[in-house]
Structures are given as structure tokens and as C-alpha cells.
């Protein structure tokens, strides 16, 4: 699993404060720790920085490249900020996060990727919004995103398609479709485009205590359909366990076996079955309930585990 570490994100109060103080040590430490925890790239989301982008984007790139050699993912809607960051990159091939199928972004951002030889994350989203159906998202990739890359000769190996994870709390019907979109996108083109998702979006607006469980179960499902790249929290040890168990087909303990079984079922186009779980074990029972909300079988509620 190629993890793009998500922890340098302006939504975090600590990041906000550190940025206000231009605290180099904070960002260097957070970058180093993410790489040590297994992140293969570092996402940098400091927002659009409408006023100070010309200073902030080069500053953060320089700061982080001081301590790590991995690719940086420039995560912003500010195209000028993206370019300011790209000009400063001296190490690994960067990632632009992101374009969508909205005309204005699709016009500008791929050209930047081309000019600076960056990888490019492209979201299956049009101006009208995100379609629910898996097929509609795949069609955006085939009919709009990929043709645009071909038009400007962006090498296909630089394209990463993100079919957009949405939260189970409020967009529940999207969750099973996203799984199918990940499955199908791998056959959408030859060579197959890379696919990445923002995993933790699945638990946005979910009470904090349930978020990691929902992320893990969804991850097992997505690994079942072949997901190999995601923007995620590399410090989540239980999540890293799930990745390792599924990648190595390790079924040596009951939880490992359960997560592998989920991945297997989803891989085969089946649904996890109650008998796959030892429901007398509270942890497995919680995992079973989580599969049911993620597959939109049972309506989500914040206290769904009490149901």
C-alpha cells in the first residue's frame, strides 16, 4: 500500500498554529515521523492561502525537503500556489492534488503537471457534483479525465484517479458504489491508471471513537478490489495491521482472518456473511455491523454499534 501521509492538513489546530508561527521544526518533525511510520509520500494541505501563497508554498516545500526525500503531494485549489510549490521542488517527482472534471480546473492543472513532470490526482467530479453510481464515475474518467491527459500528452503513468470517498454519515448510498468504482477503474484503460482515495473521508462527521474502525473495515473492502494507494494517516497502527494482514494474507489471528475474509468476499463480488464473524467477540461483532453500514444494508446512525 502506497500511503500518502495526510497529517499536514490545515484542518488540524496544531498545523494551523505551527503555520502561523512558521514553525519549521514542527513540520519537519511531522514529515519525518510520517515517513518513518511508512508513508511513501507526504500530502501538504495548507488551504488555498489566497493572500500569502507566494511565500507559504515555497516555504513549506523547502522546509519539508530539508528532512525527507519522498514525493510531496501539493494539495490545494490554488493553481498559482501549486506552481509556486512546484518551482521549489528539488527532490522526488511531486504529486498535484488535484484536478477534477470541472472545465476550469481541467484546463489549468494538467498543464502544470505536464510542465513540471508531476503526477496528477484527478477526481471523478463534474461541475454538477459527484455522481452516486459507480459507472457514472468511471465514465467521467474515461470520457473526460483521460482524454484530457492524452490531449496534452501527459504520460498515463503520471495519472492517478481518485473516485472520491464520501462519508457513511449522510452519503451512505455512495459507499458501496465507490468500491465498485475502484474495481472497475482498473479496467478502464490500458495501461490501467493508478487509483487513490482519501480513506478517512468515509468517516467524516462520525463520532471520533468510531472513525478508525469504519476506516479499517472500508480499507479491507477497498483492498479486496485492488486498492494500492491512498491518502491516509500513517500513524494508525491498527490500520497498518490490516494493511499488512491483507497484503501478506496473514490469517494467523482471528482479527487478521476476519479482515482477510472481508477483502476476499468483496474481491469475489460477494457480501460478507454473518457466519464469517464470531459474533460473541465484541470486536468482530462491531466489524460485522460496520460492514453492514458501509454496504448500505443497514441505515447508519452515530450509535450504530449499539443497534
Amino acid at each position, binding site marked *: 500500500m502506497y500511503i500518502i501521509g495526510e497529517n499536514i492538513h490545515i484542518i488540524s489546530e496544531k498545523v494551523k498554529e505551527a503555520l502561523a508561527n512558521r514553525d519549521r521544526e514542527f513540520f519537519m518533525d511531522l514529515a519525518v515521523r510520517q515517513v518513518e511510520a511508512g508513508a511513501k509520500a507526504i500530502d501538504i494541505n495548507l488551504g488555498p492561502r489566497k493572500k500569502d501563497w507566494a511565500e507559504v508554498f515555497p516555504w513549506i516545500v523547502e522546509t519539508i525537503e530539508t528532512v525527507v526525500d519522498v514525493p510531496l503531494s501539493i494539495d490545494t485549489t490554488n493553481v498559482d500556489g501549486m506552481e509556486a510549490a512546484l518551482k521549489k521542488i528539488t527532490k522526488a517527482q511531486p504529486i498535484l492534488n488535484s484536478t477534477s472534471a470541472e472545465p476550469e480546473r481541467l484546463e489549468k492543472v494538467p498543464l502544470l503537471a505536464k510542465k513540471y513532470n508531476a503526477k496528477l490526482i484527478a477526481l471523478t467530479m463534474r461541475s454538477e457534483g459527484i455522481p452516486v453510481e459507480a459507472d457514472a464515475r468511471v465514465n467521467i474518467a474515461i470520457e473526460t479525465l483521460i482524454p484530457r491527459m492524452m490531449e496534452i500528452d501527459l504520460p498515463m503513468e503520471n495519472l492517478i484517479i481518485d473516485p472520491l470517498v464520501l462519508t457513511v454519515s449522510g452519503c451512505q448510498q455512495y459507499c458501496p458504489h465507490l468500491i465498485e468504482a475502484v474495481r472497475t477503474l482498473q479496467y478502464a484503460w490500458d495501461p490501467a491508471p493508478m487509483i487513490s482515495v482519501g480513506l478517512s473521508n468515509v468517516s467524516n462527521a462520525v463520532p471520533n471513537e468510531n472513525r478508525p474502525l469504519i476506516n479499517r473495515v472500508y480499507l479491507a473492502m477497498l483492498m479486496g478490489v485492488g486498492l494500492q494507494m491512498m491518502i491516509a494517516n500513517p500513524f494508525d497502527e491498527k490500520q497498518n495491521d490490516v494493511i499488512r494482514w491483507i497484503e501478506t494474507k496473514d490469517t494467523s489471528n482471528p482479527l487478521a482472518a476476519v479482515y482477510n475474509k472481508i477483502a476476499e468476499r468483496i474481491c469475489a463480488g460477494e457480501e460478507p456473511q454473518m457466519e464469517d464473524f464470531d459474533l460473541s467477540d465484541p470486536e468482530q461483532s462491531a466489524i460485522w455491523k460496520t460492514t453492514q453500514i458501509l454496504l448500505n444494508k443497514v*441505515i*447508519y*446512525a*452515530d*450509535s450504530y454499534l*449499539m*443497534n
Partner: protein
Amino acid sequence: MPIEIPKDKWPGSIRTVTIGATSADGGTRSKTVTLGGYTTLPFMHFEAPMSNPPVIAIEIKSRKPDDWSPLLFEAWGDVMNDPAQWAKKAEETGADLLVLALTVEDSVEDAVKAVKSVLSASGLPLIVWGPGQAEKDNELLVPIAEATKGERLVLGICEDKNYRTIVATAMANGHLVQARTPMDVNLSKQLNILISDMGMPKDRILMDPTTGALGYGIEYGYSVMERLRLAALQGDAMTQSPMIVTPGFEAWKTKEAKVGEGVPEAWGDWKARAINWETLTAMALIESGADVVVLRHPESVRRVREAIGELVMA
């Protein structure tokens, strides 16, 4: 040519809930109302019988409201000044049960007195709503629940921000609760879980998913109801409560129903339009799974009653 109608067999059922208690069960009601108990979408008689078809509640208030449409004043007349008389008239009008809505002006004494006078004037099962302000609701509903112990009233309205006190007093005094959430399946289920988790028996909870009126977001409302109902029939225990909705309140808020002046002539006759608005709002909700519709105008009650009758026979 014979046509085979495809039938669904649902694993889940809508929970049976009884409102009101007769003297045999520790109350004073002359009749009770039973909801739910069926295993099909509304009026799909070919799949399964709809054991308890939807019922009609008429909304009355503890004081004559000053913000209701003149058409409603015209319909009810002087009885609006006295909840007991209003209740009696509503029963004669054909209500299956009554809603008594309290107001912020009511003191505890006023409120308890209003509830008791309604219970004396009419033998119908009763739903009591607080004025809709958390503190005031709790202040009024607790003494009412205690003063009417065993009547199996429905107390409302429980919402996400304020349900504990109402649920506790309903549990202690043998009443039911109405659980309201703002047009959202997740929140609706969540509130049911929270109320059940307090120990409230599930057969004493009504879900109020809120709906909007015809032309004012009703499609969101009935989509939520449909989704809750499908989940219930698929076996999700936390969505299986019968649903109560308030098309009277929703419809009479709209300009089309409320106002007769300063509107386009093409809108036609005011009274006809207003009653159509309430009736059509109610019927759309009944078709999407409402078990109790709370109405305001006597003519709407008559029409909805007739329509339910036809749907039951169809």
C-alpha cells in the same frame, strides 16, 4: 390475459404500538388506537394485509392560536377558546385521536388543567405537545405525565437536544413519546437508539421524521420516510416504529394555504386551495408510510378519511 403481480416478502415488520388506555388497562379512554403490525409497504394488500391503516389526529391548542389561518377560525369557531369544547368538536368531526398543543403562555397549572379537561371531554387517545422550547417543554410535560399516569398518552416532542426528561417521565408514568428529527434517516435512527438505550420499550416510541409541505420540500420528507420504511421492512429494528407526521402544521404554514389576499388570481378559490394543500400533503405522506397524520381543517379530515377508506378497500 392473467397478470402475475410480483410480490415482496419482507423479513421485518412495523412495530405494533397502542396509544391510549381504557379503564381495563388503567386509563380512562373510551377507545384506543393501534398502529403498525404489518409487513408491507402502504396499501400493498396483495402482499400482506395492512392490519392497522393510517389514522387521523386533529390538532387543537390549549389557547386559541393567534397565528392560524382565518379559514381555520371560520371552520372551528368559538370552540377554539376552550380546549375541552374544541376536543369534543374534533371528536365529532371524525378524529381517531387528538393532539393537544400547549403554548409558552401556559403555566404548569394551566397546562395540567387543559390536558385533564380534554381527557374529560373526549374519550379519544391523546397526544400532548409541549410548546417547543426545551425548558418549557420539560416544565410542563413532567407534571402532565404524572397527573395522567397510565393513560398511555404520547408526549412530545423529543428531539436530539431535548429528549431525556420527556422520555424519563413517559417511562415512569406509562406514556409514549414522539421522537422528531429533521428529515434525515441517520438522525431519525440515532434518536430511536438513544431513546431505547434509556430503557424505553420500543413499542412506546413513534417516529416523527418531519416532512415539509407540498411544494416546500415534501419530496425530501417522503423520500426519508420511504427509506426508513424500507429499512424497517428489511429488518432494521431501530427504524420499525410507526411514523407520525404533521401535514396540517406543514400545509397551513404555506402562503398558498394561509393567505387569501395579495396572491395571483390564477390560484383560484382560497378555501378550496387551502384544503387541497392540506389534503394532498397528507395523502402523499400516507402513501409513503405515515401511520398518524395530524390535521387541522375539518374538511381535510373528511377527505383524508374518505381516501384512506378507498385505499383500504382497493
